[in-house]
């Protein structure tokens, strides 16, 4: 039986614990796309799993070696691209990240400050940084929201290639083909009157 990288039972989170999820699991080697309308709690759920949001649950297990792509990308805008990569990556991972950036048509010098980049460029840096860490699990929140279709596909191909286990939050139906299963957030939730 495959190892569970995410296991949640009877979770309540969000303001006044308004979001309730009776059960959610993600097994090793599984890529899951989590979809749902804006404001339904997808990002909060992801932040809870990443450990940056509080909640109450009967059981919570998230693989300790996981990396996160935040919706706000979490890049330090006053630092250069290279410095942002170095913040999280060791030298061997850094080489891989730089190679992947080129593969994603990222042609900006790495000494450029992040604040000088477009949102799409920033997004590619953030995703590549997370992928290059080579952890057990990837949690990504809207990783392609600022990319055009062509570049989004390239990035998702890379993600599919490098992240064997991933939970990705997105609005984009087009991404479904890169995932083993798609979960609608409403289906996860326990509807409470």
């Amino acid at each position: 039986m495959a190892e569970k990288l995410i296991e949640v039972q009877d979770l309540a989170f969000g303001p006044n614990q308004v979001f309730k999820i009776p059960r959610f699991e993600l097994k090793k080697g599984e890529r899951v796309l989590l979809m749902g309308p804006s404001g339904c709690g997808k990002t909060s759920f992801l932040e809870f799993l990443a450990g940056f949001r509080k909640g109450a649950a009967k059981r919570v297990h998230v693989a300790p070696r996981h990396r996160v792509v935040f919706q706000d990308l979490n890049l330090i805008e006053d630092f250069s691209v290279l410095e942002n990569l170095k913040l999280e990556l060791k030298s061997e991972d850094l080489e891989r990240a730089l190679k992947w950036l080129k593969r994603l048509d990222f042609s900006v010098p790495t000494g450029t400050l992040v604040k000088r980049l477009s949102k799409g460029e920033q997004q590619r840096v953030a995703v590549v940084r997370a992928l290059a860490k080579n952890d057990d699990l990837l949690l990504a929140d809207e990783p392609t929201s600022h990319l055009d279709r062509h570049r989004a596909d390239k990035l998702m191909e890379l993600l599919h290639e490098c992240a064997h286990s991933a939970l990705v939050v997105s609005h984009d139906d087009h991404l479904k083909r890169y995932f083993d299963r798609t979960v609608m957030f409403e289906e996860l939730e326990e509807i409470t009157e």
Partner: protein
Amino acid sequence: MSIVSLAAVIFRRYFWYAMFVVFGVAFLLYVLGGVIQYSQHVHEERHALEMINADVIAPKGSSIEHLRRLLRLEVFTEPALIPSQLYTTLTTQPPEGLQLTPVFFWGHHDDTPVIAADLKLQDILGAEFREISQLGDREVIVGKTAAMKLKLKVGDSISLTTDFADLAEAPYTADFKVKAIDELGVWNGAILSSLSQIESILNQVKFTPKQIWNHNLLSYVFVTGPEKWLQETKHLVDKRTVAQDLRLSTEVPGLLKLSGIDEKLELEVLIFAFLSSVISLFAFLAIWLPLLARTYRKLIRSGYSTHQLLLCFQLLGLFLLFIAAGLSALASHYHPLL
């Protein structure tokens, strides 16, 4: 990225913010250094004032009126020198705790002032002016200007009058023999020794260390009449103005001011500077801290622990403090606040 590298990157990327904060801290340290210097200075001067127990007076900048006032004081023991401003205060607002001694005697002949030497000063002054060491009772040295005006020669007799302005006593008049005619400067109506010669004399005068006049030495010396003569003048002294065995406590702020310290003004300036430095530092920090806080949050989300980041910011803070302290020390060295 190691903690040191991270601190270096933060410093490099926020260089100007850091520099503004460094300048703010340096300014604050500079002002605090000034406050400490000021406190020490005031303390030392207050202590020095408490050491004054004697023996005054020949003021720089004194007018004839000052000299007259001086003569109204009791004749005491040792001669001494004080700055004129202090003397003015002492004579207009006699402080408690100060024993005053006039150290010169002066007289005039037909409105031309003439001086005579105090025997006690003869030892000091004799090396420079041999005539002074040879002065005897009822003998005077006359400056060349005065001698020319009065057509005096050595050996002539001159009648000198000392009057005391508003005192009830009658002017004192006595005959003196001109012992010598010398290059004496004429200043404020009184006859003085030339400044260049007096400077060397002053070098030989021993003062009690840290006494207030050490900082404000007058540049010339008055000499008094012979002891016997001084005794004769005693009855002319206005007893009402004599200050004996008094304490200085009530006059300390005034005396400090005379020694170059205006406590109130300097304190106000220091407080203003202190507030300015605090406000400027907070203004700089108000700009920089939100950026640092945002960076801190992002670093936490990037996997850095609170402990690591505290270490990093402490390192950065110490480095900036080191630079600020250096700048402050340089500023204090080349341009002390006080």
